């Protein structure tokens, strides 16, 4: 018995030595996001997209990067645990977190401890507000709301707009508020503003009826895809077919298991990434992603891919090595992020000192179960 225990312990020691060895020659990036739970589609997409970028960079032979992916289950408390785990594992910077609520919690900790964070997809302004160490690859919520209103107005998608948002979610409320503001500015008529209060809400008959009875021909859905899938199904059962317009939270609806893709026909969403784009960068990425993970990458995967390249560029320019500790790396990266320009999958990006990104929004429409760029 003792011998077995000793052998196991020796094995574990040997393995832990290997773990250290691999950590020593690569710059460690902590990735935090929901790998399980209701928002897992986003987290796994980020982890997969980031891995593709890391593999490409490591294949170049220069600076080597290593990812340490930890699950936060889209929960603030578990986000902090994941954050502590990646730091314990020696992360020098963080790519994450993926969703807004945990990101706000983790960003506050990271600000205190001086850890650089680049979130691919947490889009609330609360994530970056007052924190010089947090940057975003995606649009902020306000930018998404205002850009959606502008898009609906510019492309004359409809004359009467209905909104269904989740007033229990920072993400949804943030987008809703700037959408309304922009809509007023543009004289876009909003005929129904309806809400629900939790992600678990199942019955949307009242909200749909309010939009339908007021004659809304565009319904703006600044919400995640699970409630959106219920709204689409229930709207169909009352034969209501406006243009549904979503934002990044809608991304992922086509990967929902068992979902009748016909329901999403004609749904539009604001996204800086469209997998059917013809440029070489997108084709390369989509090809590799499909080969590795068997599905078409969504916007989150693209944001993560761009995020890794932004970090790579900044690491190169600042000369960060595996020896640099996270606090030192943080100050170097903060200064560098404002200087770099990245031509990525989601457009050409530059960053302001606030951590906010600048790039052009585009929209896609779902046709025959795939995203198609709007011409």
């Amino acid at each position, binding site marked *: 018995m003792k011998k077995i225990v000793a052998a196991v312990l020796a094995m574990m020691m040997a393995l832990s030595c290997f773990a250290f060895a691999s950590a020593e020659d690569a710059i460690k990036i902590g990735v935090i996001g929901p790998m399980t739970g209701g928002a897992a589609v986003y987290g796994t997409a980020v982890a997969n997209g980031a891995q593709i970028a890391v593999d490409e960079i490591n294949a170049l032979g220069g600076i080597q990067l290593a990812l340490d992916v930890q699950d936060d289950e889209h929960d603030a408390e578990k986000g902090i645990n994941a954050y502590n785990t990646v730091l314990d594992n020696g992360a020098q910077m963080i790519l994450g977190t993926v969703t807004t609520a945990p990101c706000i919690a983790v960003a506050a900790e990271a600000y205190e401890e001086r850890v650089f964070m680049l979130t691919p997809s947490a889009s609330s302004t609360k994530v970056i507000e007052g924190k010089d160490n947090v940057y975003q690859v995606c649009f902020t919520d306000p930018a998404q709301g205002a850009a959606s209103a502008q898009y609906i107005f510019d492309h004359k998608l409809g004359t009467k707009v209905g909104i269904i948002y989740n007033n229990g979610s920072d993400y949804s409320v943030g987008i809703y508020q700037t959408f309304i503001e922009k809509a007023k500015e543009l004289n876009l008529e909003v005929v129904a503003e309806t809400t*629900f209060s939790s992600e*678990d809400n199942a*019955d949307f*008959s*009242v909200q749909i009826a309010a939009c339908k009875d007021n004659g809304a021909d565009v319904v703006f859905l600044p919400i995640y895809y699970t409630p959106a899938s219920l709204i689409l199904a229930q709207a169909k059962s009352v034969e209501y077919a406006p243009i549904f317009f979503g934002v990044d939270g809608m991304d992922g609806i086509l990967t929902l*298991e068992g979902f*009748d893709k016909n329901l999403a026909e004609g749904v539009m969403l604001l996204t800086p990434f469209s997998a059917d784009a013809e440029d070489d960068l997108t084709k390369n990425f989509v090809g590799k992603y499909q080969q590795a993970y068997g599905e078409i990458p969504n916007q989150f995967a693209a944001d993560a891919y761009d995020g890794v390249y932004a970090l790579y560029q900044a690491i190169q320019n600042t000369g960060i090595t595996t020896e640099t500790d996270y606090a030192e790396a943080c100050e170097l990266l903060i200064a560098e992020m404002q200087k770099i320009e990245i031509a990525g999958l989601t457009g050409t990006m530059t960053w302001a000192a606030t951590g906010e990104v600048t790039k052009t929004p585009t929209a896609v429409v779902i046709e025959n179960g795939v995203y198609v760029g709007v011409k």
Partner: protein
Amino acid sequence: MISFLSHLVNGISLGSVYAIIALGYSMVYGIAKMLNFAHGDVIMVGAYITFCATQYWGLPPVVSVLAAMLVCTVLGVVIERLAYKPLRAATSLAVLITAIGMSYFLQNAAQLIWGANPKSFPSVITLPTLSLMGGQLLISGETMVTVLANVIIMIVLTIFTSKTKMGRAMRAVSEDKGAAELMGINVNATISLTFAIGSALAAVAGVLLCSAYPALMPTTGSMPGIKAFTAAVFGGIGSIPGALVGGLLLGVIEILGKAYISMELGDAFVFAVLIIVLLVKPTGLLGKKVHEKV
């Protein structure tokens, strides 16, 4: 007027789902005198079994629902045998906590087996939407089937409990466990049978719930379960018609409250009803007042 009618229809649709779930709560409470908080999660299991049967094994809807009923019946009996029976002599608080524990166990087991990603439940009901008043009032196939299923189950259960030997045994156990045992009724078997029926109903409820609201995840059963419990208390827990009345009224109150008072407070109305009922008529609308014998 039309919009009021369509809210009413939606309320009845939601309420009849609550009613079927409430039946399971009520029956088990009536006979075993315990609140089976895992009932909502048995519903979720039933929905997952149906999902797997139709999506992965390619079975026709009717067979899938029967398979789900079978699995849930076995599950219900096993839960009763393992988790509740050893505690039959314990305080009701201990049983209540065990039931809550069982509820979490089922949710986590489902997450382990089927993953935490939500699934979109393909409706097993193919009935077309009924269009009334020149297309202004639409009643979906799911609503009609749910209401119909409710009525049928209610009638069958009422006949079962009043006419059959087993049903009479159930009522006897519910009245007085000790006396029933002295009369030669097998109390354990009767309680197991109650769990079996309650769980088979849960499978049907799961299919109807997810057909109307097609998002399926490990926590799918918990909120409707709690609301149905409220409905059971509202109608008078332990009473079969009470569950129907309570469920329907609660669904209508929730939808009308959301439509005409405040959209954010939909859930609050449901629980406000629970508080008011407990204050004004603790036995519920159709509940019987039982005097405690000293």
